[in-house]
């Protein structure tokens, strides 16, 4: 019997101005984090529609993380404030439906915080891995 280590699939939405740059900085400094994290670049965290997050879960993601500029530092002044409200409400709703709250996260990572980006991803991957596969928001039709 072959035992393969469970590898979670993590989708990370990163805003172009802070967090995506923070991820680049993590790379520049060779700060490693699991390859399970796949980054999608968006102009601002406020571009992330709840539908994108649900879709990621539908297609098999085990965790979704949103990264944006720190509140007050948004490139577009106010974008991440809206993100914060939208995601607070969405995550609370997912929790209410019994979806594990550890599968979603919002983290503010600035362009200077390469180390924080790597640490956040390490932590989040470990957190999701501990939960195991996403069963509650999966779509069997999308299973491999």
């Amino acid at each position, binding site marked *: 019997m072959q035992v393969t280590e469970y590898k979670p699939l993590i989708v990370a939405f990163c805003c172009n101005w802070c967090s995506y740059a923070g991820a*680049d900085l993590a790379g520049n400094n060779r700060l490693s984090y699991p390859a399970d994290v796949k980054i999608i*670049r968006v102009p*601002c965290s406020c*571009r992330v529609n709840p539908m994108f997050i649900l879709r990621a879960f539908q297609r098999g993601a085990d965790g979704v993380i949103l990264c944006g500029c720190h509140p007050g530092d948004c*490139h577009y002044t106010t974008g991440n404030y809206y993100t914060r409200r939208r995601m607070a409400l969405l995550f609370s709703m997912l929790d209410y439906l019994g979806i594990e709250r550890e599968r979603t996260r919002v983290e503010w990572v600035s362009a200077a915080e390469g180390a924080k980006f790597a640490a956040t991803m390490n932590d989040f991957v470990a957190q999701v891995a501990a939960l195991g596969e996403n069963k509650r928001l999966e779509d069997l039709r*999308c299973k491999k």
Partner: protein
Amino acid sequence: MQRIGVFVCHCGTNIAGTVDVKAVAAALKNEPGVVFSTDYQYMCSQAGQDMIKEAIAEHHLGGIVICSCSPRMHEATFRKTAAAAGLNPYMVEIANIREQCSWVHKDMAVGTEKAIILGKAAVAKVNLNTPLTPGQSPVTKRALVIGGGIAGIQTALDIAEAGFPVDIVETKPTIGGKMAQLDKTFPTLDCAACILTPKMVDAGQHENIRIFSYSEVTAVKGFVGNFDVTIKRKARYVKEDVCTGCGLCTEKCPQKKVPNEFNLGMDNRRAIYIPFAQAVPKVATIDPDYCMMLKSGKCGVCSKVCTAGAIDYKAKDEYIEEKYGAIVVATGFNPISMEKFDEYAYSQSKDVITSLEFERLTNAAGPTQGKLLRPSDGEHPHTIVFVQCVGSRCEACSEKGKEYCSKICCMYTAKHAMLTRDKYPDTDVYVFYIDVRTPGKNFDEFYRRAVEEYGVHYIKGMVGKVSPEGKKLHVQASDLLAGKQLHIDADLVVLAAAIEPDRSARPLATMLTASMDTNDFFTEAHPKLRPVESPTAGVFLSGACQGPKDIPETVSQAGAAAAKVIGLLCKDHLTGNPCVAHADEMMCNGCSTCERVCPYGAITYVEKEFRMPDRTTKLRRVASVNEAVCQGCGACTVACMSGAMDLRGFMNRQIQAEVDAICK
């Protein structure tokens, strides 16, 4: 389906060291739409770029994916490459397989697998890309400066010197602002008028500068490069182009009891007046609240004495409309009202004054011709108490004061104290302070001189109460270092009142859709990197309207704002960012939700007639995005329930395709 080419970069060993680039190129070859896939040592090199150009031509590529370093590094490079090969630059997508892959993963198999997935996501996105063309809008080569204080004057002069016409709009009858009221300036003690009035004259005579004094901005429409501004020119009842500024009328006017605002009401002027001798424009103005002719039709003295025939009692407010490419806000500040700080007895004694009033009392052109005399009895004060931080640094929910530090008070109080001791060595001068804040070139040295050379008594502690008893002001205060409560019988108390933005700023911000903080200071586009720009494109900030500032700081910010304006006006056209929001009118509900989240005021609504499926027509309210104003954040796209609002370059479908590719 596009015809897509994939180019995998080795970046020397930076990528190829942890990612099997050949395997990536091979795997992506099988993705939908991919007709060509290759790898190369350095894609960004000339040879690499030539290779891309050739492949575009040879394989009739409609879109390309570069698997390389971060798009923040070379997206612009590869877009130019594509454009050179005749491909729309927005048909290029980058898969970041260096910073976000090869550099953070050590295992070749793991790195390769992830690189392939990132490549697939980029391919999936390019499949849905559409060619984008940035919008172009012309630039009106004229700037508007709102506010004619030192900030506005400096900005206007710098822009004018660069060859662009500038208009200054000032609500008062003259430019000059607060600086014109000051006596000396710290830390060099040169006289404010000596350095300001030449600049005022320059502004008044500059061929590129028009001054609309006694005027207000009443409406602003349009956007960066294309503002339409309405300016109200208040009736001054004197023909500006006829008046010679001789001042005869201001001597003959029988109405002598008008509080002189320039001297903060400490003396009187006439109903027709020129604020001060160096006013620009040097033209008289009739104060309609006091002029007997305007109020009751009985007088007309000024008209009789005016040999130039400049008086016009029938004048009306006029509105002019003008186009501008850029707007600079320089509305400045005012000291806050001392009404709510009556423990200092400001409204109970004439001898409790604000620092600005003190400036006038020591100014040679002021009500006392520069002699420091008590307002109550005209006697020379022998004991003067200065109180710092009156209304500054209060708690956030304070009903009385401001939460911020007003920044300039420590220095001007040191100046006042020093000048007093210099001119009147027989005077005892006390300064009560919480902290003395002197970060500035030669600032702390200046303050130390006040203490060490001029013998000003600096006492750490606040004043609790000022009681007017007889001819004295009984000052009860803390001396925290000595652990004493002090009781000083003073002749004059000077309050360093907090400063606040001018009241005209709030309505102006609304007109400009420029954002403000809770204190009504204008917010900058970025607190560190874009300090003189407002988040609204084409609107710039100069001076204390953005936050408390001293003169050197104001002037440097004024110059910086001018540089930004010049940079904008130099362009004939503005090339927009094509990755902007766009509303699908057929799907738009016209509900105004997107408008509320737009930080730039880029969204407006229009009533449009639509042909309905049943051949009737219907008038519907739909959103319209001004592409020159939109910055492309995407806040509106999520606020929009129906999905009518989408963001070009980051469309819902594109992002979902990336999600799908990653999760597959």
